[in-house]
C-alpha cells in the first residue's frame, strides 16, 4: 500500500508542477514540455493503480489506458510542436504574443 501511495502522491505533485508550468511559461516549447510533464503525472498515477492489487498479475486495464494515453499524448505533442514551428516560421517568435495565456 505504501508503494501505491508513494507513486500516486508523486504523480499528483508532478501534475501540479506541470500545470504551473503551462500557465507561467511564455515560450511555446516550455508550455508544451509542461503539458507533457502534466501527462507524466497522470501516467504515474495510472501505473500506481495498476500495481495495487497483487493477484495473478497487475491490473492490465490501467496499463492499457496508460499505453493508449502515452501514444495520444505523443501525437498531441508532435502536433503542437509542428504548429509551434510553423508559428515561429511565420511570425519569427515562439510565444503567444497577444494576450495572457
Amino acid at each position, binding site marked *: *500500500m505504501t508503494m*501505491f*501511495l508513494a507513486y*500516486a*502522491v508523486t504523480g*499528483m*505533485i508532478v*501534475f*501540479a*508542477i506541470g*500545470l*504551473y508550468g503551462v*500557465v*507561467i*511559461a*511564455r*515560450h511555446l516549447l516550455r508550455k508544451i514540455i509542461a503539458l507533457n510533464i502534466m501527462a507524466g503525472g497522470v501516467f504515474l*498515477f495510472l501505473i500506481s*493503480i*495498476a500495481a*495495487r*492489487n497483487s*493477484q*495473478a*498479475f*497487475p*491490473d*492490465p*486495464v*490501467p*496499463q*492499457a489506458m496508460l*499505453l*493508449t494515453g502515452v*501514444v*495520444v499524448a*505523443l*501525437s*498531441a505533442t*508532435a*502536433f503542437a*510542436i*509542428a*504548429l509551434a*514551428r*510553423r508559428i515561429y*516560421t*511565420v*511570425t519569427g517568435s515562439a510565444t503567444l504574443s497577444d494576450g495572457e495565456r
Partner: protein
Amino acid sequence: MSRFHWSMHVVCATAATFLAAVLIYTVMTLPSEPAGLARLVEDFMNVSGVEHPVTAVLLNFRGYDTWLELGVLLVAVLGMLLFQRQNDLRQIVRMPAAEPVLDWLIRLIAPMMALVSGYLLWMGKYSSGGAFQAGVVLGAACVLLWLSGHPSLESLSGRVFRFLLTVGFSVFMIAGALFMLSKQPFLTYPVATAGHWILLIETAATFSIAVTVAALIMGLQPTYSETEDQP
C-alpha cells in the same frame, strides 16, 4: 524569462501547491485493495488469442480504443503535413554522408534494429511488446538512416508514403468489419483464429507507426523550398 511580475509566480505557485495538496488528500482516501479488473481479464484470457493480459486488453477486449488511437496518430501526421505545407517527405534536405566509422556502425545497427522490431512485434503475444514498441524501434531506424545520409523515408513516393501512413488504421478497421458480415458486432474475432488476426493487425500497425513516428521527426526538418516559403 517570463514577463509576469513575480507576484503572479507566487499566486500560481500557491494555487498549484493547493491543488497538489487537495489531490494528495484525495489519493489518501482511495481504497488500497479493490477488486481490480485483473480477475475478469484472467477469466477470459483463454479466448483472447494471446497470452499476455495487456495485449489482450489492448488488441481484443478494448481494441476499439487502440484503433481510435491509431486514428489520433494519423491526425497528428495530417496536422504536421498541413503546417509544413507538404504532402510527403520528398522535399526534405538530404543530410551529408556520415564519416566512415559512424557509417559502418549504422550499416551494422540499422538491420539489427529491424530485427529487434520484428522480435518485439512477435513477443507481444507472450510478453510486453507489440505494435507500438516495434513501430517506434523501426521508426528510429528510419531516422538513424536519414541522419547518416542514407536513403530513408524521403525517397518514398507520395502514394507509398500515404499508403504506409494509413495501412495500420485501415487494416484494423477492415479486420474489425469483416466479421460484421456474419452478424457479429464490430471488432469481434472468431475465437480460434483471434491470435492470427491480432498479429496481422499488429504488423500493419507497426509499419504505420514506424512511418508516422519517423515522419513526425523528419517532417520538421528544413526542406529544399524553405527559403522560398512565403509567410
